[in-house]
């Protein structure tokens, strides 16, 4: 090694490091020396101490060995040596006697026996890693053997290592401290030099001559600093002038740069805005260059509409596969004209088959222009997705077709009118009914113009009401007289016509021509009326028959009474009176004598007395009979009067007790009931006063009583009975006619009130039917009940009833 080299290296390192290195080298040498001395001393002390420790151990052990040697017991000696196990440092122990060089031995477990050391005197020997200690075994001053104890020096070595470690740590800590201290202290000397050096470096690299070094003191370094500062001041004054000129130039450059930057930023923002619009606008945009048949620029909306990605779009003919062939052909033709310069713009609807299977409709608009820079022709194409529009259009067309079919095909007049009742749209049938080939002449017209005031006034009123209230008019029957006098009946439903927002913007309606139905109804009404009349007349005839029958009965009585009176008068004693008169005339002269003396004459007075009493009784009988006769005649008068009262024109209501009508009905049937030996029971639970058309009620009741009579008669039973009961509640009264006759089977019970139904052979079949109708006209009802054939039947006439009528 060349000894100059490390010195050169030392020369090159900075002053502060040199200084630190010198200090640290000095400190290290001092410390190492101190540590070495300390460790040497410690080693010697340790050896001495260990020798002493082993010697005392050997003394104790030797003492314990005497008996074993005396009594020649090596086993006991080994046991004693084993006690050395308690001292880990002892590796080996060995007892020698004059008789036996190997009397007893101890070897630490796992230890190598150390090499023998020949020694026969007491003392200690350090041999290699071991300390051998020899000690004679003595008893009472007599040496009987020699004990050798061998200890290893591991403890010492461990301790030395530990000391070395501590010394190293102390050395390191000391060096660190020395380094820190020296680093701080060296600044006193090197600080100003370093600062000066740094400044000189700064001046050299940055060319900043304005800096100055602060003065520290008046030593050599201070002088150096002064000289340096002076040098800098001279350079600076020259430099300033130069700097000014340069600053002026720089300012101008900065201004220009800022303006340019601003313009660039503006352009970048502009570009970002256009990019955003291009990418977010829902209209597809593409940039096509016909020259290379490639689409160069495609925005996301364009990808969405055509289903062709921007990348795929760049390939020539990319849209041929996804476009509808017809549309594509048309577009190609237009593009050709485009390229030829015939047109500079076109627009068409194009269909694209999307990858997901949808067909997208789009309006394609292409514009041609020339690139101002190159003069190449280019086109910008926009696509607007009109699929939804198309769909809606198709749906609307369908709806329109449905409406059209309805308006063209319906036989009813269907119309839509505005708020001024002008027809907006109407069905073909309305046009036809007004004699037009189609509906056009009617559009925009009002009812006034089409039908005239008679129809228009009412329908306008209806429509105004609908527009005002929003409430529909449903199934209104209207009678219209058409020009020419034809009467037309219509069933009309009108309702408000609302806009999408729910506002009423007019009316709509359907009118159905129901004239034929109406006519049929009228005919039916007439037939019905006629039937009713027939029924009534038939009823009257029945009543009349009853009346005559009753009159006949009474006339019988009259006849009997008259015959009786005639008989009475014919057989009267008036002749006896004449004979007495003749006798008295013969004895006129001596009337006194004759009356007193003559035996015959004496009986005359007696006879007259008898005769007088006889005539008196006869007169009484005749008077009675005549009175009977008068009564019968009165009865006939009543019957006739009653018949007259019922035969009066219907429609007159009277207020009277219900049971009077019932009694009248019974009286009219009284003869028939008694003739057929039917007992009559009256069960009047209440006696209400009602206001009714009397003859209608009577007619129904007469009919019911007569039916009951027939039912009883047909049953052929002995205890024939008809019960008439009046009862009711707050709201209605009931007259029940109950018989115990033949009864009604359930299937007949349901149709017993039908027109023309009868169970009697000679019945006309509308007694009960007209009865039921009449009851309904009276606001009541006619009901029938029967438990079946042979169980009798109950017919009930129910009539409305209020307390007010009772009070009245």
């Amino acid at each position, binding site marked *: 090694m060349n000894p100059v080299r490390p010195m050169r290296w030392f020369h090159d390192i900075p002053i502060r490091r040199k200084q630190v290195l010198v200090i640290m080298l000095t400190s290290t040498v001092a410390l190492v020396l101190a540590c070495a001395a300390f460790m040497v001393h410690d080693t010697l002390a340790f050896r001495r101490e260990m020798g002493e420790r082993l010697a005392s151990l050997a003394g104790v052990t030797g003492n314990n060995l005497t*008996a074993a040697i*005396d*009594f020649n017991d090596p086993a006991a000696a080994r046991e004693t040596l084993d006690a050395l196990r308690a001292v880990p440092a002892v590796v080996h122990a060995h007892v020698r006697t004059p008789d036996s060089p190997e009397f007893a031995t101890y070897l630490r477990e796992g230890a190598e026996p150390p090499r023998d050391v020949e020694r026969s005197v007491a003392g200690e020997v350090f041999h290699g890693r071991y300390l051998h200690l020899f000690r004679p075994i003595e008893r009472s001053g007599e040496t009987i053997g020699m004990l050798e104890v061998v200890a290893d020096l591991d403890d010492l070595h461990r301790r030395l290592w530990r000391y070395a470690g501590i010394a190293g740590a102390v050395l390191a800590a000391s060096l660190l401290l020395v380094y820190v201290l020296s680093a701080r202290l060296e600044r006193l000397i090197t600080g100003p030099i370093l600062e000066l050096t740094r400044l000189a470096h700064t001046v050299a690299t940055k060319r900043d001559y304005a800096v100055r070094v602060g003065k520290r003191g008046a030593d050599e370094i201070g002088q150096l600093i002064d000289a340096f500062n002076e040098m800098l001041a001279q350079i600076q004054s020259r430099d300033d002038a130069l700097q000014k000129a340069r600053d002026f130039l720089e300012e101008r450059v900065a201004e220009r740069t800022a303006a340019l930057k601003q313009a660039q930023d503006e352009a970048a923002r502009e570009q970002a805005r256009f990019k955003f619009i291009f990418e977010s606008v829902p209209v597809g945009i593409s940039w096509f260059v016909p020259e290379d048949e490639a689409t160069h620029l495609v925005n996301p909306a364009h990808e969405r509409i055509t289903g062709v990605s921007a990348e795929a779009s760049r390939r020539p003919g990319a849209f041929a596969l996804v476009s509808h062939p017809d549309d594509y052909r048309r577009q190609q033709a237009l593009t050709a004209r485009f390229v030829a310069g015939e047109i500079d713009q076109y627009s068409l609807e194009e269909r694209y088959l999307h990858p997901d299977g949808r067909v997208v409709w789009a309006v394609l608009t292409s514009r041609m222009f020339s690139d101002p820079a190159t003069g190449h022709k280019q086109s910008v194409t926009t696509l607007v997705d009109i699929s939804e529009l198309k769909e809606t259009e198709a749906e609307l067309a369908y709806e329109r077709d449905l409406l059209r079919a309805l308006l063209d095909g319906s036989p009813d007049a269907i119309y839509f009118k505005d708020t001024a009742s002008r027809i907006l749209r109407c069905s073909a049938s309305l046009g036809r009914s007004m004699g037009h080939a189609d509906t056009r002449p009617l559009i925009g017209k009002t009812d006034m113009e089409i039908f005239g005031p008679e129809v228009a006034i009412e329908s306008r009123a209806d429509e105004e009401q609908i527009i005002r209230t929003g409430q529909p008019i449903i199934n209104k029957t209207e009678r219209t007289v058409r020009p020419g006098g034809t009467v037309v009946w219509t069933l009309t439903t009108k309702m408000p016509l609302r806009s999408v927002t729910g506002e009423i913007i007019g009316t709509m309606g359907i009118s159905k021509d129901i004239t034929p139905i109406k006519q049929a109804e009228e005919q039916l009404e007439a037939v019905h009326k006629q039937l009713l009349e027939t029924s009534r007349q038939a009823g009257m005839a029945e009543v009349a028959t009853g009346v005559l029958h009753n009159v006949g009965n009474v006339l019988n009585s009259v006849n009997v009474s008259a015959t009786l009176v005639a008989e009475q008068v014919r057989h009267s004693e008036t002749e006896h009176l004449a004979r007495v008169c003749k006798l008295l005339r013969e004895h006129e002269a001596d009337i006194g004598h004759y009356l007193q003396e003559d035996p015959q004459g004496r009986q005359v007075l007696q006879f007259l007395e008898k005769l007088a009493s006889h005539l008196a009784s006869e007169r009484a009988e005749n008077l009675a009979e005549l009175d009977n006769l008068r009564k019968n005649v009165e009865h006939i008068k009543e019957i006739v009067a009653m018949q007259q009262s019922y035969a009066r024109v219907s429609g007159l209501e009277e207020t009277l007790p219900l049971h009077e009508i019932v009694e009248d009905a019974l009286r009219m049937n009284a003869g028939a009931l008694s003739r057929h030996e039917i007992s009559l029971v009256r069960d009047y639970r209440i006696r209400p006063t009602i206001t009714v058309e009397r003859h209608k009620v009577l007619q129904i009741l007469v009919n019911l009583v007569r039916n009951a009579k027939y039912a009883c008669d047909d049953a052929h039973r002995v205890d024939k009975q008809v019960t008439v009961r009046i009862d009711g509640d707050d709201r209605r009264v009931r007259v029940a006619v109950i018989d115990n006759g033949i009864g009604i089977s359930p299937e007949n019970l349901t149709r017993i009130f039908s027109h023309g139904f009868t169970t009697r052979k000679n019945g006309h079949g509308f007694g009960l039917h007209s009865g039921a109708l009449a009851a309904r006209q009276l606001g009541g009802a006619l009901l029938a009940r029967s438990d079946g054939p042979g169980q009798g039947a109950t017919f009930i006439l129910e009539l409305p009833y209020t307390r007010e009528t009772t009070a009245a």
Partner: protein
Amino acid sequence: MLAASCLAPAGRAVESADPAPSEDQLKAAFLLNFPKYVEWPAEAFPGAQAPIVVTVVGDLSLGEELRRMAAGKAVDGRKLEVRNAESPEDIAPDSRIIFVSDAERWTAGLLAHVRTSPVLTVGEADDFLDAGGMINLARRERRIRLEVSLAPAEAAGLKISSRLLRIAEVVKR
């Protein structure tokens, strides 16, 4: 391995080592070693220089060997004086160690005779300690083991060194 040669100075050990030691020599060596490990009360001896009298009962040859080996030996300044006795009645009252050789017939009477005296009784019979003896030389395989009974020793005022006890079997009865 000769117990007898232990007594000789180390330098002479090589000379007398060759012949195999007899049983009598072994027993004699043991008996001569006991005084080194047993302490008698002071009044057991008439003076500081008074000899330790060892009486061997019955075994004349052992007595001879013992006498030969003890010649010129001293323990703590006391000479060893070996005597022979034919029967217990012959035992001198100043005997401090009595060895009862092999003869059970003597044992009981002998022991009763010395019970309260400071006499170390040594035997070689299996039941010697049972009969009240202090130390028995038991034959084990080819070696002689010491058996010690402490109670009679204490009763006689003798102290047996712990170093001896360490190599002996201490029997408690």
